[in-house]
Every structure is written in C-alpha cells, then in structure tokens.
C-alpha cells in the first residue's frame, strides 16, 4: 500500500463517521482499521523501511 492510498482510506473512514454514513456496528472494526492506517503512515514518515534499505544497498556495495 502507498502512503497516498493509506491517507485516502483514512480520509474516507473519518468522513463516513462524520456524516453518520457508518453504522455503529461497523465502528469498532473501522476504528481498528483507521488505527492501523495511522500507524502505517507514521512508520512511513519516521522510519526507514526494509524495502528502501534494499534500494540503497547496491550503492554501498559497489
């Protein structure tokens, strides 16, 4: 998942809660999803992931 996609999904959840589109039964599941998305975005902002490490690896081996 890209950061942009995560933000888009998060945006969607917030909007659905705000407009009352989301049923109270879905709330718990969607809240869990929202927290996962926030964690993913925070990690992307503040942590170097393995994927990117790999990308930079060959350069240091050369």
């Amino acid at each position, binding site marked *: 998942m890209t950061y942009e996609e995560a933000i888009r999904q998060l*945006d969607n959840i*917030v909007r659905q*809660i*705000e407009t*009352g589109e989301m049923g109270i039964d879905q709330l718990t599941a969607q*809240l869990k999803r929202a927290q996962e998305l*926030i964690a993913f975005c925070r990690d992307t902002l503040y942590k170097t992931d393995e994927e990117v490490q790999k990308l930079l690896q060959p350069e240091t081996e050369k």
Partner: protein
Amino acid sequence: MHYLCQSNLVNVETLTLFELNQRVRGAIDEALPDKYWVRAEMSSVNVNAAGHCYIELVQKHPSGAGMVAKARATIWAGRFRMLRPYFEQATGQAFTAGISVQLLVTVGFHELYGLSFVVEDIDPTYTLGDMAQRRREILLRLEREGTIDLNKELPLPMLPRRVAVISSETAAGYGDFCHQLATNAYGFVFCPKLFPAVMQGDAVEATVIAALDAIAAEEENWDVVVIIRGGGAASDLVGFDTYLLAANCAQFPLPIITGIGHERDATVLDAVAHTSVKTPTAAAEFLIGRTAEAAARLEHLTDSLAAALTTRITAEKQRLQGLALRLPASFAVRKANETAAITLRLQRLRTAVGTLMAEQRHRLEVASKVLAGANPAVILRRGYSITYAPDGHAVRHAADLHEGDILVTRFADGEKKSIVTE
C-alpha cells in the same frame, strides 16, 4: 623554374617572413586603427598562470552547421582581473566557453603570433540578451511541441521521500542537500541516492540525460528527481540551457525539482522542471516542507477521527437516552388517552342509561295510569258489579245462567249471594 611566366615576376620583391609579417602588421594597423565591438561565441577560454586570458572566438553558420569565421582574442591579465568579475556579476554567468559575448577589441598582428584581438572591454548586456534569446527559442520550440508543461502537470507525491539525486559526486551542493534532509527538525526519513553527472561545461547535457535515463529505468523506485549543484559566485549554466536536456526533463515521468544555484534568470531546465528553487538546501527544504504538510494532514486526520468518534458516540448515547426517556412518557400519554376515552365512554353510558331510565319510567307511569283505569276494584267503586257463576267465572252472557244457579255478586264493598229464578 617558376610556374608563372618570368616576365611577370620581374618587379616582384623578395622578403623574409619577418619582413612580410611586418608589412601585414603595418597594413592592418593602418586599415583598422579603431576599436570595434565584435560579437562572437567563445569556443574556448584559457587563463594561463600569469593571469592572461586567451579566447577562441567563432561565428557559426546560421544553420548551425560549420563556422563562418574564427579568430583569437586576448585579455591581458591586468584587464582580465577587472573584466571577469564585472561580467560575471552582471550576468550571473561564468566567463567561460560556450557563451556569446560582445567585446571591445583592437585588431593586432604580431609577426610571431599572427592575428589576434586585444580585448579592452566587454558588454554583459549582450550576453544576457543572447542567453535570454536562446532560452526563449528553446521554450518556444517546447511550447510548439506541446511538451513544455508536461513535467509541471505531474502530481507531486504527497510523501516525496525516495529521492533520485542528479548531481556531481564532489559537489558541495549534494552534501548540503543530504545533510539538510538527514537533519530535518521533524525526524522525517528520506532516502536520497546519487546518480552522478557532470554539472558544468559541455558534458552537462549528455551526463544529465544519461542519469535521467538510469532513473527512468527504475522509475517505480523513486518519488521525485532532484537536480542540484552547489552555487559559486558565478555559475556556468549554459550547459543547462539546451533543447535536448529541457525536452528530456519536460517529458520525464517523475516530477523534477531543480536547485542549480543560479542567481538571475532561470535556465530552460528550471522553466520546464516541476518545481525550481535556487539552491540544493532550498530543494531539501522543499521536500521537508512537503513532507511536513503530509504529516500535518495525518495529524489532522487523526484528530478528526477522534473528534468524529466522540461526536458519533455522544450522538448515539443521546439517541439512546432519548429513546429511554420517551418510553415511559409514551406510556403515560397512552394511559391518559385511554383513561380519557374510558371516562368519555362512561359518561356517554351514564347519559344513555339516564335517558333510557327516564323513558322507561314515563312509559311505566303511562302504563300504570292505564292499568289503574282497568282495575276491577276501581270499576266496582264506580257502581259496577261482577257476577260469578257457580263455576267461579264472571258471568258475561245471560244465556249461560240457568234457574236455580247460585250466583255470587261482588260489589265494591262486599259480596252477596243470589239465586237465578227465571
């Protein structure tokens, strides 16, 4: 033996090379005594240890193919020390090969060194105009081809953290850029990788395009491309003002950010890039700023989520409370309604019963009056009497009686027996 007829050569002088060159020098001095503004492109510029500057001037054919003129020019060290900073400050462009200049020259001929111009002054406005003209032509061409805004129209990723950097390995600019990214105040993580290129002189076009090609080959690995070079007092930006480089950048599939350290007019490269800033540090700041926006948006969303949840849950609670309150209330209303209905019915019932009773009472009265009229006792009192036959029945017909029958006659005040005689 001579090629030509002997007679034609009778009056021909014979000179040494030096003598002939002396005459050439004299002729030139006489024919071209003034100073002249000459416009030309510098194909090479060399400064020797003594500080003298030796220039190769050329004039290209308008079609671009081949040259129509070529000459050497010299700026003596004393003059060059003044002219160079003057020129570079005025144009923001290094005094270097590849640019067009307008020079104030005297024409000289030296017996040993041949024809050479000595430069006395330089007009930076011509160079500025020429550079601007070149840029305009390139931009016009890109506009005609419909490619000029292509890179600008690319969406800038929300999070530009995988950064392909085109720069010179040794350039201070690249170090500044990486340092700036690595030490950003927010603690954001960026992943810059260098794709080396030559950042000045003739090799700019070819090496930058090669670096772009290398990035394009692994396009999915990168969010943005940054082209940077450290800025000096004056920069040699002519290499960035080429059609091929601009066309490549304009059509590049990733957004390009430039920070190539110019102080004046933007280069063609800046004009086609997605975003153009002045320095490598500013380029890093741009990426950090963009990321900070993304982080702020995330925080805002997180807050909105919490607020939306609170609002939603409060609303649900209120709804529930409302329902709970309305439950007994609705019962009470219902009860009151029912009670009222019952009371109404009771009243109607009472009224109906009353009416019915009155009617009945009336009828009873009427009936009892009628009845009172029919009472035999009453009739007897009026003077009538009833005669009973011996079988106990009231006598209604004379024929029913026979001689000797004992009759009982009842009066209002008693009975008397009698015998039928006839």
